[in-house]
């Protein structure tokens, strides 16, 4: 009896080992064969969530599988990111990465539970959204240079959607490059910060383009420059900080971006298939229309290109965070 039990154990172990060995080889060919999930580290209804739902629908059509969105908000997106990092690496749990999870948060949070490089395998960069430097229409600054002259006297403030947001850190980057003294006034979301700018309680903001654009169009806010190296398609007449001719601002590049990542151990074959599918998705007319209404730039590209993009982002924000001294112990 003991022997037969032992044999059975060995047989089971052998089978398990064979299955484990066979699994990855089968995985890429058979993928996808069941429902996919995109983890969004923010609440339903936010910008990241809306994007993820759009991608989920189009990716579902492309792969002929159901793609659902799972919201795991909390702790400035680090909670959901951690959960995505430790999910089963079978290519069915995708993660909607963004400038926070794979750019800013690793620099800001000292005790992060995930490693943006080690734990993840980048798939495709989807879109990027410029930030735009805006002032109240009644401000006497009509250009970046004029704003800087005014700000030299001190006492000026810049609003943001919260500590560690791309809006905040664009401001910090501007401060450190120009050597200006600007007081940071954080709000909880752009929805609260923009009214303060409209009312003149804060002097400037480096807002995400989609939330600022209606006020620029209505004339309530004046756009001085965009924060990307190239002008934004939605605001072609507005120049860039990089080309504003101000010392220290050359090469200024700050933007929000969104891309899909999977766990580090996912089969490279699956990553390649997924990347192809996502590149097809973002080229559809539906997605183009979606991006246009949000003032977003469609990106796309290979997993390798996305990986080196993330490397650059991590390094860039680390420098800004170190200089500004914003970190969470």
């Amino acid at each position: 009896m003991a022997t037969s039990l032992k044999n059975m154990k060995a047989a089971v172990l052998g089978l398990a080992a064979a299955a484990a060995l066979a699994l990855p080889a089968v995985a890429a060919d058979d993928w996808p064969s069941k429902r996919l999930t995109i983890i969004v580290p923010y609440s339903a209804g936010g910008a990241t969530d809306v994007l993820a739902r759009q991608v989920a629908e189009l990716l579902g059509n492309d792969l002929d599988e159901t793609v659902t969105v799972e919201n795991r908000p909390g702790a400035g997106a680090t909670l959901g990111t951690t959960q995505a990092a430790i999910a089963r690496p079978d290519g069915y749990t995708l993660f909607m990465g963004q400038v926070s999870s794979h750019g800013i948060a690793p620099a800001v949070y000292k005790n992060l539970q995930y490693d943006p490089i080690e734990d993840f395998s980048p798939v495709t960069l989807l879109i990027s959204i410029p930030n735009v430097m805006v002032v109240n229409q009644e401000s006497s600054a009509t250009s970046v240079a004029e704003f800087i002259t005014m700000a030299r006297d001190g006492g000026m403030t810049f609003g943001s959607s919260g500590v560690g947001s791309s809006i905040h850190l664009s401001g910090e980057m501007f401060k450190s490059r120009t050597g200006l003294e600007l007081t940071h006034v954080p709000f909880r979301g752009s929805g609260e910060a923009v009214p303060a700018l409209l009312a003149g309680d804060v002097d400037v903001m480096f807002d995400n383009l989609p939330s600022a654009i209606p006020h620029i169009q209505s004339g309530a806010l004046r756009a001085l420059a965009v924060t990307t190296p190239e002008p934004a398609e939605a605001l072609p007449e507005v120049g860039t900080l990089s080309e504003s001719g101000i010392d220290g601002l050359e090469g200024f590049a700050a933007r929000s971006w969104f891309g899909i990542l999977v766990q580090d151990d996912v089969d490279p074959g699956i990553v390649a298939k997924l990347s192809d599918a996502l590149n097809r998705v973002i080229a559809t007319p539906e997605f183009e229309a979606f991006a246009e209404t949000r003032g977003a730039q469609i990106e796309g590209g290979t997993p390798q290109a996305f990986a080196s993009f993330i490397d650059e982002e991590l390094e860039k924000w680390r420098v800004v965070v170190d200089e500004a001294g914003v970190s969470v112990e």
Partner: protein
Amino acid sequence: MDALLQGLELFLSVENFVAIAIGVAVGVIVGSIPGLTATMAVALALPFTFGLDPVTSILLLVGIYKGGVYGGSITAILVKAPGTPAAACSVLDGYPLAQSGKAGKALKMALYASCTADLVSNLALIFLAGTIASFALQFGAPEYFWLICFSLTVVISISGTSLLKGLVSGLLGLLVSTVGLDLVYGTQRFTFDNFNLMSGVSYIPLLIGLFALPEVIDFYLRKAKPLAVRGADASRVSWPEFRRCLPTILRGSGIGVAIGAIPGAGATAAAFLSYGEAKRTSKRRENFGKGEIEGVAAAESGNNGVAGATLIPLLSLGIPGDVVTAVILGAFMLHGLTPGPLMFEQNLDMIYAIFVGILFSSVVLLIAGSVAIRQFVRIADVPPHILLPVVLLFCVFGSYAVQNQMFDILVMFAFGIVGFIMMRIGMAAAPFLIGFILGPLFEDNLRRSFLISDDLGVFLRSPICWIFIALTVFSLIVGLRREYQMRRTAKAVEADS
């Protein structure tokens, strides 16, 4: 005028009527389930609007929102499990009414107050949007700070039997609200290195734990309680009763409109402020908290008065005041529309179509609410030994559903125990909630004021500041005096008997 006719034409389609009906119905059901909020329902419905007409999609979302805001009161009254934070105020008098067999009456008053407030709020949106929006923009950090100070004085009115215990409860709420990352420096406070606590204690699990769970715990600790099976509840709101509450409802609607128009203030503050004002001015104030129908009317009118008004900053300025309106803004943008002054110039017909639809939604809310009440009121007849396990199930499910985090279930149980202890020692839970919800607004705006200006004079910079300082002082003095008198009379009555 042309635009108005075009708008009417744009609105008059079967799709729009269906969208509003479905929206409101879904909203009422979702709102009534603790943990599932109007915000969530609106966000989840957004993808369904991709293929719809712009007006139809906006009306669907607005319908869900309005239904959701009202739906929160149903379970608040029936089983003390508020579906939304703002509905917690309806618990104060709604639940005692339900316990005394008048669930139907409480639910109906909640519905009538909600629909009246909704209508007032819609009319304010349509006729006063421009004026109110420019008023709302004058609310900077210092003005906001004083508004919150004034709102905090409501703790006096909702402290129950002991003002001291009420204040302690409110301070505990304030303390719990400081958990998480600090706004200005991002410092961790009371997080004990736990990542789940970094963005603070989530309010839905706290709300469910604090209000619904103590009832469940209490029932199981007093096992011997006889099974209370009641007959079908046919209690109604009589016309004289409604007429008596009408001033309260109209005042609540006004408070709701004012608070709703200010980005970020929220329905909870409006509901409690309306309740506090009603209690302060009512002839039957001794009855508040023990099952006074006027209390339900006050809470619900304040709560629902917010719904239409939050669309004011959105439509007239393009500013979303809360998460729901942010999602609705997203829906506008998906269809290539940008709310704000420009929309009034370029798509006036569409604005009118939406206005007509929103007015119509108040009527639909009345119908959907009546149908819902007829079904839901039977819950009051379910014996507790069957009902409470189901309530417990929904508590767990609702806490999990908010963020899909197991940790939130622990939060719910932890605050359930806190709530139970508070119930046992006669400490009201409502001040705790007010402290918890208003605490961050209080702190943020205080600190923002200091960031905006080095000068303390910033707190006195505008007439709005002065008005709210005066209101705060007035409310404190009158409230404390009333409480003192009430207590003295109560003692005298006790001594006599």
